[in-house]
Structures are given as structure tokens and as C-alpha cells.
């Protein structure tokens, strides 16, 4: 396998952000005509690594060689000059312009007079699209395309520019069956042309389908780099989650009370299929699964964000049909969303205003609002959840991730939520704040609240949960009690059946 010429070599790459070391002395070599898969849990350092490759981040220390010459990249433009390109999930396309114009954004075909040569641009774009057997018109506007089609345009755009290194950041997160097959066809074609490909994915099965080499990152370190022939699915998972469960978690024994929430056959079209489970007072119920398994969707359908197609939801003994989150909040539910920056907190407003939001929404039919009372409560809660700040008048955007998350949580406490739905609450939070957050969760359940916790960090989920439900393909597949299952067992149920079969064959 390893006959290709080394195009890009990274030596002892370290990247520190304030307070966090994202990468520790990572070595990586990319060879021509090779698909190098990069796997690891969320926060393992994959995206930091590829951002250093493209020049979007600068490394703190280490060395990067391109074709044997040391290079220092200070912007993505530098990377592009060297033929290093990345296709991110957040696409850098121009939504109001045509497919052709997007493909040739960086190198517009021009006439002798230096004017835009539209016929040539559209023709060349059509040729490129045809070459990859893509049925997208060069005249279509980007915003009229589906996300998958947009992703394909982004790929075609990157390919039109003679790339030496092509980085694909989880393309399978948006592509479906036949589109993915087509992408694999394109990748095979590129390999023949001698392009070095970095392929990031959470669907581990793909590693075996198209990878030549796999590198596993964990906690910012390169755990292993191996030829794909020498790797099995089980080993790869072990390497990914390998860390020991130790005192980095905090869990108290709490008396579990009566059922507070009961779901029976909840279904939301295309998102959740026949989910049945119950949640008890003082319980932390973990939801495990891969990205896209339907965990967030399940939380959102309980919270009234998605309308149920069928099934019943009983909360505190009363059957509920929520038409909107407002109904759910009124019944004592609170939701801490995955993306606190866009869905959880109002970043440009103060801490006290954020905490008071839930109360305001509840009081909306009272004509006048007495702010001093509300803010007084906010102060109490902020002290209670220990938000670290200079003043409660401070804008939330100035807080660290952990403190932003506490603000969101305090909002639900202010509105007296009894059942808290937490979606990846510790993502992107440093280890110290995480521990504080765990202690706080313990305190909440001790006080009789109940929590449904979604987390992609299995050790965390296993340490905190009283029970764990494993989801895949929109369904709940398995229930484990605390301490009953190993990570491997959980992952086994989290990986969809058809993928497992494909892997073993």
C-alpha cells in the first residue's frame, strides 16, 4: 500500500487554545493516491488538525512539510496555494449565485478583454458535473439545491482547482445511500489521479469501505496510525474510547421516585420511530447513539418542537399533546440544546436577562412585569449554579462555554422546570467546568428533578446515568442499567444493523 509519494507531513503538531491543549505532538503523513481516514470522538482534535492543515488555524509548535519543504500557513489562502483544500460541513458557497459561478469562484474564466466568459464558464461547469455523473444544472442557484447537492457542488468546486490534498469533513453526515456511493466513486477516481485524501467520519464502517490508512485521535493525541488491513472494528472502537473511567466524573446515589414522564410509541416522521420509555423522579436517563441516530430529535419531540405523528406522552400522570415548546415549558419541562450559542442563550444580552427569560415567557399574560423581583431570583440562581462572572449585567457572549451552559440551566431553574432535557451539555467545555457541571446535575436530581441526558462521550454517559437507552436509526434499540454494559456493548447497539453486517462480511 504505502508506495505513494509523501505529499504532506506533519511532525509533532501541538495546538493550544487558552486553557486547553487541543493537540499534543501529533504526527501524520499523507501520501499521493491514499485515503487517510481520521476517526475519534467529538473533541478528539480532528477538526483542529485539519484546520491546521489548511491554514485556518496556526499551530502552536511543530512542523509541517509539503512535498518535503517546511511551510508556515497563516490563512486558508496559503493552504490553497499549495493545493490543500477542505470541504467542510458548513459550506463556503454563495447561496444566491449559480452552480457554475460557485465552482469557478476562485478562477473565473475570462475573455481576451478580461471580462467574465459566461458561455465558457457554464460549459466547463457542465463538463465537470458530467464527469462526476452529477445531474445538477450549472445554471441553478445554490440555495435552490438540497444540502446533499450543495455538498456535491462544493466537492466539484474543490476538484476543479487541481488539489493535491483534499480533506473531507464528514461528508456522509449529509449524503445518503446513492449519493455516498457516487462520492466513493469520485474518491476512487481521485486516488488514481494521485490526490491525497483525508476522510473524516463518524460512520466507522466507511473506514473499511474506502480507507487505506486510519489514524485514531483521542484527547488531542495520535493514538495509532495503521494500514486498514491491520485494523478491526472492535480495535478501532477501543482506541477511540480507550480512556479509563476515573474521578473525572461525579455521581451521587439518589433515591429514585415515581414515574414522572412516560413515553409510549412516540413517532415523528423521519426522525423518531416508536420510542417507549419512562423517566422517574431523581433519575438521570442517558441516551446513547451515534450522531444522527435520532437522540436530539427524540428530545425535541418530547419538548414540543416536533409534533408527534403517533404515540402518547404522559407527564406527571397526565397525558400531554404539545403544540409548541411553550406548552412543554408550562408542564415543567426545560431543554438545554446542543448548540448553546444559537439555540440556548441570547449571547448579546446579560446573564440576568437570560436567566429571567423563562420566567418572562411564563408570565406573559400578566400585564406588567416586576423586574426587580425577577432579577433578584436571577441573582440567587446565578450564585446557586456558580456562574463565574464580574457582574450579572455582563453579556453572556463574554462567558466561557461552561458558564454559558450554567446560564442556560439557571434559566430553566428560574422557571421551575422539573424535567430537564440536556443535549450534549458538556460539549466544548473544559474538564474542570465539566466536573462542576456533573456535581450540579447530582444536586438537581437530589432535589427531585429528573434529567434526560444525551451525550456522545460514552464514559461520561456511563458514569452519570442510572439507565442508558441506546438509539440507532431513529429507534431505541436497547436499555442498560447503570454498570451493566461496557462501552463496546453500547457501541455495538449504536451501530446500525446493516452496517455491522457489512463490516463483518
Amino acid at each position: 500500500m504505502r508506495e505513494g509519494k509523501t505529499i504532506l507531513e506533519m511532525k509533532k503538531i501541538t495546538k493550544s487554545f487558552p486553557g486547553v491543549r487541543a493537540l499534543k505532538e501529533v504526527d501524520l503523513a499523507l501520501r499521493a493516491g491514499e485515503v487517510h481516514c481520521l476517526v475519534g470522538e467529538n473533541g478528539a482534535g480532528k477538526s483542529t488538525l485539519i484546520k491546521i492543515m489548511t491554514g485556518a488555524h496556526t499551530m502552536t509548535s511543530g512542523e509541517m512539510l509539503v512535498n518535503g519543504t517546511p511551510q508556515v500557513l497563516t490563512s486558508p489562502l496559503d493552504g490553497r496555494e499549495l493545493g490543500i483544500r477542505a470541504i467542510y460541513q458548513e459550506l463556503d458557497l454563495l447561496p444566491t449565485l449559480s452552480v457554475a459561478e460557485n465552482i469557478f469562484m476562485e478562477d473565473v474564466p475570462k475573455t481576451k478583454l478580461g471580462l467574465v466568459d459566461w458561455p465558457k464558464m457554464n460549459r466547463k461547469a457542465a463538463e465537470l458535473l458530467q464527469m462526476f455523473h452529477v445531474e445538477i444544472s450549472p445554471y441553478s442557484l445554490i440555495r435552490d439545491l438540497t444540502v446533499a447537492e450543495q455538498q456535491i457542488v462544493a466537492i466539484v468546486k474543490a476538484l476543479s482547482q487541481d488539489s493535491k490534498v483534499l480533506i473531507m469533513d464528514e461528508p456522509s453526515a449529509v449524503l445518503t445511500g446513492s449519493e455516498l456511493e457516487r462520492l466513493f466513486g469520485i474518491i476512487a477516481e481521485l486516488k488514481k489521479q494521485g490526490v491525497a485524501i483525508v476522510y473524516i467520519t463518524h460512520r466507522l464502517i466507511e473506514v473499511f469501505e474506502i480507507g487505506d490508512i486510519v489514524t485514531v485521535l483521542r484527547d488531542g493525541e495520535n493514538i495509532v496510525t495503521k494500514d486498514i488491513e491491520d485494523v478491526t472494528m472492535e480495535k478501532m472502537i477501543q482506541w477511540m474510547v480507550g480512556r479509563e473511567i476515573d474521578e473525572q466524573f461525579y455521581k451521587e446515589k439518589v433515591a429514585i421516585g415515581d414515574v414522572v414522564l412516560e413515553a409510549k410509541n412516540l413517532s415523528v416522521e423521519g426522525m423518531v420511530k416508536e420510542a417507549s420509555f419512562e423517566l422517574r423522579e431523581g433519575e438521570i436517563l442517558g441516551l446513547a447513539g451515534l450522531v444522527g441516530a435520532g437522540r436530539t430529535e427524540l428530545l425535541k419531540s418530547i419538548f414540543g418542537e416536533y409534533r408527534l405523528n403517533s404515540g402518547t406522552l404522559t407527564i406527571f400522570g397526565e397525558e400531554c399533546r404539545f403544540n409548541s415548546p411553550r406548552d412543554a415549558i408550562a408542564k415543567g419541562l426545560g431543554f438545554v440544546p446542543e448548540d448553546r450559542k444559537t439555540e440556548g442563550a441570547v449571547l448579546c444580552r446579560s446573564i440576568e436577562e437570560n436567566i429571567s427569560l423563562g420566567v418572562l415567557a411564563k408570565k406573559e399574560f400578566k400585564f406588567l412585569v416586576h423586574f426587580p423581583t425577577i432579577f433578584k431570583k436571577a441573582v440567587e440562581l446565578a450564585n446557586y449554579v456558580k456562574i463565574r462572572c464580574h457582574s450579572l449585567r455582563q453579556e453572556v457572549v463574554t462567558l466561557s462555554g461552561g458558564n454559558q451552559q450554567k446560564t442556560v440551566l439557571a434559566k430553566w431553574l428560574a422557571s421551575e422546570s422539573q424535567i430537564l432535557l440536556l443535549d450534549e451539555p458538556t460539549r466544548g467545555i473544559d474538564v474542570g467546568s465539566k466536573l462542576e457541571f456533573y456535581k450540579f446535575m447530582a444536586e438537581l436530581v437530589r432535589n427531585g428533578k429528573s434529567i434526560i441526558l444525551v451525550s456522545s462521550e460514552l464514559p461520561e454517559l456511563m458514569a452519570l446515568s442510572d439507565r442508558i437507552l441506546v438509539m440507532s436509526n431513529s429507534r431505541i434499540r436497547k436499555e442498560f442499567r447503570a454498570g451493566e454494559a461496557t462501552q463496546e456493548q453500547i457501541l455495538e447497539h449504536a451501530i446500525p444493523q446493516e452496517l455491522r453486517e457489512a463490516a463483518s462480511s
Partner: protein
Amino acid sequence: MLQNQIQIKHKAGRSFSSNIVLLLVFAAVMLIGALISPLFFSVQNMRNIIVGAATFGILASGMTVILIAGEIDLSVGSQVALTSVLMATLAPISLTLAIVASILATVTIGILNGVLLTKTKMPSFVLTLSTMGIVRSIALVIGNGQPVYGVPRSYSNLANTTVGGIPLVAFLLVAIYLFTWFFLKYTTLGRSIYSVGSNSEAARLTGINIDRITVAAYAISGLMAGIAGLYYTSYVTLGLPDGAVDYETEAITAAIIGGASFFGGEGVVTNTLLGFLIVAIVKNILNLMGVSPFVQPVAIGLLIIIAVGVRTMRKS
């Protein structure tokens, strides 16, 4: 191959249909005009429409460029007033000097708008709201708050001059719209303005200097305001420091009826031309009907709500 062609046709059909809607509205407005008054289709009335509305017609082409860049320029009406005052003040010395000074002034204001915007990163609405007041004030100070006489007869006659029965300014409008259309469609700078307005971060990562593009868009807006001011001076035959009030709103109206988007990256100047004609004709019809000028803005307001509302509803 065949399938590809079919798809191309299908997709082209989409933008075509929104053009059709615009043309239909235009035809409908013309038809209403014809039904309301026999005078509507007279040569004289057609001339009146063009001659009376040309100033904001010119502004609308510059405004389209600004809207495509994702910004707005509220200062253009004040710039027209300043130009007329400068023309009336300087023309007695030298007409050439007056014209050169006016255009220089408005292009400079445009560049200043752009530079201030890109340096401070403040919203363009707020910035140009401020410069709108400042420029207006300069015009009032120079003109001492009074109309300024001094525009030569030969110059003020230009607005009424016709060639082969067609007013001179109609040719000017066609030339300006052709120029802007060509500039936006075929030059790199023109396409860069679309890119910046569509997704400035993506444009920046492509290597486009987005600040420079924004400044260029405002310079063009200033240039158009200067040309509009030159025509306005001839049309009103004097310098009016308190003239051309609300012209920026009319320019914006024409551009958005023509399909330009407030969110940037979108807009075609030929459609702005149609939008301009629709607004001009509706105003003319209201005049022919003897509708009070106090009530006329209601009609324009409704027109915007219908034109833009239909479009945004179709999109969602």
C-alpha cells in the same frame, strides 16, 4: 446529456417566471393607465413620466449595486441636493468646473461612506442615515437655505430637449442601465460585489478584498447620485438645497420591486429598470386621476407590500 439539457431548461424556467411576473405587472399597470385616462398613452404624457422620474431612476441603478453588495445608501437624495447647489453656485464661473466638482464631490462622499463603513463595521443603515443628514446640511449651508439661481439657460433646457421626439434623458437612462448591467454581469469587480453580498465570509476566503469591494460599490452609488444630481439641476433649473427629499426611498422602492434583496447577493439591474418604470407609471396614473399627493404614498406602499410579499411568500 439529454437529461442534463432537460434539467437546464427546467431550472432556467424558474428565474424566467419571476421575470414574467414583473413584466405582467408592468403590462397591467400600462393597461390600467390606458383605461383610466385617454391622455395616458399620449406622447406628451410618456415624456412627462420619463422626464419627471428620471432622477430617482438613475439613483435606482446605483442603489441596486449597493443592495447587491448587501448594504444600503440612504445619503443619495442629499447628494442630489448637494449637486444641484454646487452646480448652481459654480456654473456661473464655469460649467465644466461645476460638473467636475459635483461628480468629484459625490464620488468622494461615496468613498467616505464605504471607508467609514468598512473601518467601523457599523450597519450601513445607521452610517448612511448619518451622512444623509450631514450632506443635506452641507447643501443647506452652501445654499444658505435658499434656492440658488445661476444655472445657465442652455443647461436647464437640456432636460426638455428631445431627439426624434424622445427626451434626451431617456437615452441617458438607457446608457446608465446598460453600463450598470454590463458592469455587474461581465466585470470581475461586478461579480465580486455579488459574492460579497451573497456570503462575505466565503468571498473573503476566496481572496476577495471585501472592504475594497464595498468601498467600490459606494463609489458607484456616489457616481450615480452625482449624475442624477446633474440631471436634477437641469430639470428644476436651479440649486435646491432642500430638494430631492425622499429620493433614496424611491430608488430603494424601484430596486426592490425589481427583485433586489435586502439581504444582498441578489438583484438584476434590468429588473430594477422595470421596477422604476412601474413606480413612475403608478405615480403618473395617480396624478392623472387627481389623487392627492398626500395619499399617493399609500399606493406606493401597497405596491411594495404586494410585490415583495408575493415574492417572499413564493420563496418560503
